[in-house]
């Protein structure tokens, strides 16, 4: 479904990601792990098209999307929850969510009813400005916004940051449902080992910009973790 071939990317003169090969199969949940600053978010941004890779190729559903723009990628079914929320602060919660529909393949105009079951607080705050929400509320909004378009591939960059435990569980439940239905593929950046191993099918560990380890999630061992994830 998604395939990165020897991707190199970075900011200005500094190269952050080097020779990364990564694959996400349809319906698969892939977890990307690594210490602070190893380049996880940078990799996510390259997949989304916010950073142009210096070299390498990105294939998505049999198309080479290496040089297509972020909006084209979004329209082709990639949903993105960036690190740091990136909601539109001056737009209302409702408008933020409506914007999530921009990329909907079926050109839907209405928000799905079920959305607010998971995020009741968003319903209460529908007419509040996005920027006025609390940190966790904004994070919920960002996730909800990515979900409404019905993406085929979901990129989640530390989605649980700042969210209260009960909602974290709800989101985990959603991801589990996704996993069960095998309709959406997910690439997840997550720091919590416990969560990662419990939910992912496959993992990649990023260290200093390159893939240091990969494998089936159940094989993610204490040793590996100590080697690449502790400071």
């Amino acid at each position: 479904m998604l395939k990165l071939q020897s991707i190199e990317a970075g900011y200005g003169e500094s190269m952050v990601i080097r020779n990364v090969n990564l694959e996400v199969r349809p319906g698969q949940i892939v977890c990307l792990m690594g210490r602070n600053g190893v380049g996880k978010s940078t990799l996510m941004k390259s997949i989304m098209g916010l950073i142009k890779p210096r070299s390498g190729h990105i294939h998505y559903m049999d198309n080479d999307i290496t040089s297509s723009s972020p909006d084209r990628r979004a329209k082709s079914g990639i949903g993105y929850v960036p690190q740091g929320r990136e909601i539109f602060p001056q737009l209302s919660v409702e408008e933020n969510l409506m914007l999530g529909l921009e990329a909907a393949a079926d050109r839907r105009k209405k928000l799905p009813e079920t959305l607010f079951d998971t995020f009741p607080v968003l319903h209460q705050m529908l007419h509040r400005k996005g920027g006025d929400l609390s940190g966790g509320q904004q994070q919920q909004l960002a996730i909800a916004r990515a979900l409404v378009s019905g993406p085929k591939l979901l990129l989640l960059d530390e989605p649980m940051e700042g969210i209260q435990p009960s909602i974290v569980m709800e989101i985990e439940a959603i991801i589990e449902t996704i996993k069960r239905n095998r309709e959406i593929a997910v690439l997840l950046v997550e720091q919590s080992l416990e969560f990662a191993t419990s939910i992912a099918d496959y993992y990649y560990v990023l260290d200093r910009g390159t893939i240091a380890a990969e494998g089936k999630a159940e094989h993610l061992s204490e040793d590996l973790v100590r080697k690449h994830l502790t400071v």
Partner: protein
Amino acid sequence: MSLLLLQIFNGLSLSSILLLIAIGLAITFGLMNVMNMAHGEFIMIGAYMAYLVQKGFQTYLPASAFGWYFVVSLGVAFAVAFAIGWLLEVVLIRFMYGRPLDSLLATWGVSLALQQIARSIFGAPNVAVKAPQWLEGGWHVTADLILPYKRLFIIGLVALCIFIIYLYLYHSAGGRRMRAVMQNRQMASCLGISTRRVDAQSFAFGSAMAGIAGCALSLLGPIGPTIGTYYIVDAFMVVVLGGIGKLIGTVAGALGIGVFNTALEYTTSATLGKVLVFTLIIAFLQWKPMGLVTMRSRSLD
């Protein structure tokens, strides 16, 4: 009594003119954060379009059709300013988002160049535009109180523009896209919005509003290569006083400046009135540092 009414009308009329020159800027500066110093030159373009269309009517069409020239020129001014705005966005403004000060520098250059181009095409001296017959004269409310049709027309035109922009911005998907792009370009594109197109459209639209303003102002004021310089500062004042990024703020800003200016000018003199109005603007901002209509946000800066 009728003098008081007249003064109120004058204040309203000045407000409508200020608003007309500022709405385009409320979009390009207020929403897009481009410090467009060439805004005045788009006003100039609009005014020259009125002149050209009028000449065209006089040369090619029967005299009976002349009354229509102004309506046509509003359309032409919109279209031409829109096209030039689009062009400018594509070749220049595009590279300037998120760097308002660089946009100030570059559009200052554009403004210098456009003035010179106008001077070489139309000559340095002013050109005249003759108002159509149906805009001549005024509504005689009482013997002393005549409200010129031109001014009533401009008030109506502004109200219409504001209404349309309001509907578009706040009650359409296009407007929502536009505001989203202006607030967070990268994220908007990640949601599937073609930011390039929205950017170009928005800037072109803001410029086109300036074109409309120029066309309307040709009824009241001079038309020459440098007229943009007369309006540019006022336009920025209105947008800033109203509060950046809010259409309703721009309306309030224009009303505030227009009414106070007229009142102060009447009771003192034009010079002193001007000094007082600008002093009041400074004082007012001390009290409301973000303008009349504030957009608070929780973010730290």
